[in-house]
């Protein structure tokens, strides 16, 4: 399965330190076409840092990072936009790449915010803005999608729909996804590979393998472990529901 041609980004013992303190150290992982790799771990465990290393935002890193694509879509965890700029959703969509109207409309419709197209970015609610961020990232049909808590602040039904959308995009565009999430329930069913971080890689593998891992249990508790295995068990069900969306 994992031929080297399919690799989009590869971290080899990568680490990053700031003010003589390691934010994350010794991370090895790779994202391949059509695969979803999920980073989990407690607050401050280096998930976002790992994503930024993979994206090349941090340059003075330890270890190696090899990036094989320049078609990247990124949804950052925190984004501060300066409101000295008059910026509408439509302007934001073409921020890093020129797209035609159909492509913009399609992406905004997929995340359910097409009606906000001409609104000022500063007037959106947190959840609406999150949907716009996701629409922008997927609209350029990237080969690598890095999603750092992409559904934070989104309402409950929206959250499920957006995760299904992410899974669908990964299949349709055959793009690789590096996903960061706290939500073990919703994510694990669609994840191919889980990397559990705690300043370093504490364990990694399929969701099932990770759930069985003792370090993971120690970090997240017995209950979280049951969530993972339970969802692994219900894998079929998610595929059916995903098929239903395709019919729409």
């Amino acid at each position, binding site marked *: 399965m994992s031929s080297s041609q399919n690799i989009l980004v590869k971290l080899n013992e990568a680490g990053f330190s700031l003010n003589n303190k390691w934010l994350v150290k010794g991370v090895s992982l790779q994202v391949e076409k059509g695969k979803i790799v999920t980073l989990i771990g407690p607050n401050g465990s280096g998930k976002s840092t790992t994503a930024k290393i993979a*994206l090349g*935002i941090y340059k003075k890193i330890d270890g190696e990072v090899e990036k094989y694509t320049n078609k990247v879509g990124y949804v950052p965890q925190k*984004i501060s936009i300066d409101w*000295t*700029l*008059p*910026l509408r959703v439509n302007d934001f969509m073409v*921020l*890093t790449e020129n797209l035609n109207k159909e492509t913009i409309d399609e992406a905004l419709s997929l995340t359910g915010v097409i009606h906000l197209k001409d609104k*000022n970015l500063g007037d959106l609610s947190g959840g609406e803005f999150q949907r716009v961020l996701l629409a922008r990232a997927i609209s350029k049909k990237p080969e690598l999608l890095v999603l750092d808590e992409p559904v934070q602040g989104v309402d409950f039904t929206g959250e499920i729909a957006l995760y299904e959308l992410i899974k669908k995009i990964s299949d349709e565009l055959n793009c690789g996804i590096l996903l960061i999430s706290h939500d073990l329930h919703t994510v694990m069913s669609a994840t191919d590979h889980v990397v559990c971080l705690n300043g370093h890689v504490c364990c990694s593998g399929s969701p099932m393998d990770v759930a069985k891992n003792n370090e993971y249990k120690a970090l997240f508790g017995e209950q979280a472990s049951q969530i993972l295995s339970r969802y692994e068990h219900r894998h079929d069900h998610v595929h059916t529901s995903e098929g239903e969306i395709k019919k729409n």
Partner: protein
Amino acid sequence: MLDDFFIRALIAGIGVAIVTGPLGCFVVWRRLSYFGDTLAHSALLGVTLAYSMEFNIAFSVFIISSLIALTLIQLQKRTNLPGDALLGLLAHSSLAVGLVVIGFLSFIRFDIMGLLFGDILAVTVDDLLIIWIGGALILLVLKLIWKPLFASTVNYELAEAEGLNPDRAKAIFTILMAAIIAISIKMVGLLLITGMLIIPAAMARNISSSPQKMVIYSIIGGLLSVILGLFSSLEFNTASGPSIIAASLFLFILSLLNIKQSIKLKN
């Protein structure tokens, strides 16, 4: 009625306004007004060097301002001083050194007022060529780096992550700032150049809903300021720079009325 020198000043001013419009928007968006001031102050040193070595003023100012900008970037990397302190350090020390050098150049007749506040009488045909050719080059380069520069102005990490190389765009923009100051110094004077960059852009911000509109309104505001300012400068025999800036302030106040109206409409 309209003398040759006035026509020349008008053509020069129009050329300057077309370039300061879009650059000024970035100065406002990226909060670079003190950076612009620093480069403008250092321009005095460039002017004095041009006089003492019988060199072209615009070219000399461009070189000195670029050097000051590069020095600033190095100082930011190597010291722990805050940005505004470094800007003040460079602005006032280069201004002081420039004034000291002027003291040594007592053999040259110096129109220091014209230097500080602009002098329409001083605009020559050569200056027009420098303004229009230099201005066209600045706009061309700005168009080329627009995407990465604008994207990183909105969010640096997004631009970097999606492969736009924002650091390079920022460095090129710094050079463009030095260039606009170099070509507009005769028109507006070194104390007021930043005003020419900021005030029309600030006026445009009050009345625009998208970045493109803001750039266009900023250019229009700059053009109106130049035309209004130069005519009143001729009428009242005032220095060209302050007259242009005062005209742009007038337009800015008008744009505030627009804001009040739109707030009333919302209620």
